[in-house]
């Protein structure tokens, strides 16, 4: 197509050039995002990973740029780190389980029992707390759990699990709700017509079809719990999770290489988790 020449200014010529060269358009569009996220961000992650194989000079505190397995060796052989890693995974699993048990009936009631009008409002009610500050919500539990608070149960690992479950609950409800909404009511009617009672319908129809949505929710609750160290500081008392070990090694211990090595643990766990659930199709439900 020939562009009719209205005013052959530089702007018009640039537009015509772009119009004809899709490749140039694409490279211009991709340039900035890829420079930022592809180059700078991935580069930063790679640099951090390389740092994990360096060490810190005991006397000067400077980073020594010589390859060593020492950090990973300490990480694997140190009983403390194994305990902390297992505890962190345990907390993430517990939080995910608690959220699933609370979220599923809620999501089911929202999607299949509430009227369409009520549904809109219920979604807003579930979404609103997501916009309230993370710190404020953790703080709310600190106030309630403190010895003279409403609950007065005190701080510790249980308090951490409770608070994390509270923080991430909406992240579990929303994907499951979306999954249940997509589930045609006729399937449930059919199961009923064929004689299946509630539990059997749930086990053979509802659960298998909403499983990807459940896994999608669990990715949020699991990964958010695994990396957390702020909530632990607020309500965890003396208990520590992986995040705290990373944090303390950067701050107090000034040992970035070791912190970098510890930080690979949650990343590897998440990658394994993502690879394991990939086949369920959960990643399309995010």
């Amino acid at each position: 197509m020939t562009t009719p020449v209205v005013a052959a200014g530089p702007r018009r010529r640039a537009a015509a050039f772009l119009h004809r060269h899709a490749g140039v358009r694409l490279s211009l569009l991709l340039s900035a995002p890829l420079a930022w996220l592809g180059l700078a961000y991935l580069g930063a992650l790679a640099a951090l990973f390389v740092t994990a194989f360096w060490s810190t000079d005991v006397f000067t505190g400077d980073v020594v740029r010589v390859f060593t397995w020492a950090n990973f060796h300490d990480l694997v052989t140190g009983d403390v780190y194994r305990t902390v890693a297992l505890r962190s995974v345990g907390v993430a699993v517990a939080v995910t389980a608690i959220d699933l048990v609370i979220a599923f009936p809620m999501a089911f009631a929202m999607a299949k029992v509430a009227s369409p009008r009520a549904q809109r409002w219920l979604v807003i009610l579930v979404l609103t707390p997501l916009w309230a500050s993370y710190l404020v919500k953790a703080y709310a539990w600190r106030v309630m759990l403190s010895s003279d608070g409403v609950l007065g149960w005190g701080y510790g690992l249980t308090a951490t699990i409770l608070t994390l479950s509270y923080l991430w609950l909406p992240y579990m409800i929303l994907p499951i709700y979306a999954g249940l909404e997509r589930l045609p009511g006729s399937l449930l009617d059919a199961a009923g017509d064929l004689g299946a009672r509630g539990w059997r319908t749930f086990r053979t129809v509802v659960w298998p079809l909403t499983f990807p949505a459940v896994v999608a929710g669990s990715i949020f609750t699991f990964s958010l719990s695994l990396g957390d160290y702020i909530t632990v500081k607020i309500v965890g008392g003396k208990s520590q999770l992986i995040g705290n070990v990373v944090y303390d090694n950067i701050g107090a211990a000034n040992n970035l290489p070791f912190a970098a090595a510890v930080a690979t643990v949650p990343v590897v766990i998440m990658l394994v988790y993502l690879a394991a659930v990939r086949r369920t199709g959960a990643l399309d439900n995010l």
Partner: protein
Amino acid sequence: MNLSRTARIALRAALAAGLAVVYVPLAVVLLNSFNSDRTFGWPPAGLTLRWWGTALESAGLRDALWTSVEAGLGATAVALVLGTMAAFAVQRYRFFGRDTVSLVIVLPIALPGIVTGIALSNTFHAVLGVPLGLLTVIVGHATFCVVTVYNNVLARLRRMGLSLEEASADLGADTFTTFRLVTFPMMRSALLAGGLLAFALSFDEIIVTTFTAGAGVRTLPIWIFENLFRPNQAPVVNVVAAALIVLSVIPIYLAQRLSGDNARVQGG
């Protein structure tokens, strides 16, 4: 659907109980901001507006709020540009590594915040030699905010199709004019929704901020966290917490207005 009466009642009860669990802690914070007792003994001994006055006068708090707004606006601006560009590239073109682009954009919020935080701070500090400050906070926040704009614009472009832009070109408008008069107006609400979400993410962020802010830069979450463990600051922290809970209604209201034209404002 054929649910027994008992099942319906049980499910409704579970929903009500769940929502109660979600809202009771927030209500406690709201109520406590008026608690006249410094240590928040329960139940409150009396109610007062004193702490709200104290909070309004706190200079440190005001500075922190302003820093958070600056960081949020900066990160949102960057995210709007980068997210829109990436969304156009992925939605309008077929190229090698297209799926990888989406993955790289999601990665900063998929990885634990502390990993992104120390990776960036290490790069600023050891690789680039840039001093930490407000600018590095903005860079850090923008990195994980891109995804919200990207998701919104991508969804919008998918629905928009190409016919209106082609019509515009056929009528003689060049690429830039078409973008200004046709494409952009159709994307506006998606940009607003994505930008709103980006700002909220940035405004609430503490972990990446902790590692990318220099000593002098204090965002609101950092201020709250620093004062959380100081008993004499507790009343003011409570007021800030209560104010943030009340303010969180604004984005929800805006999001609902926007969702009238189907913008995606739910989580990342």
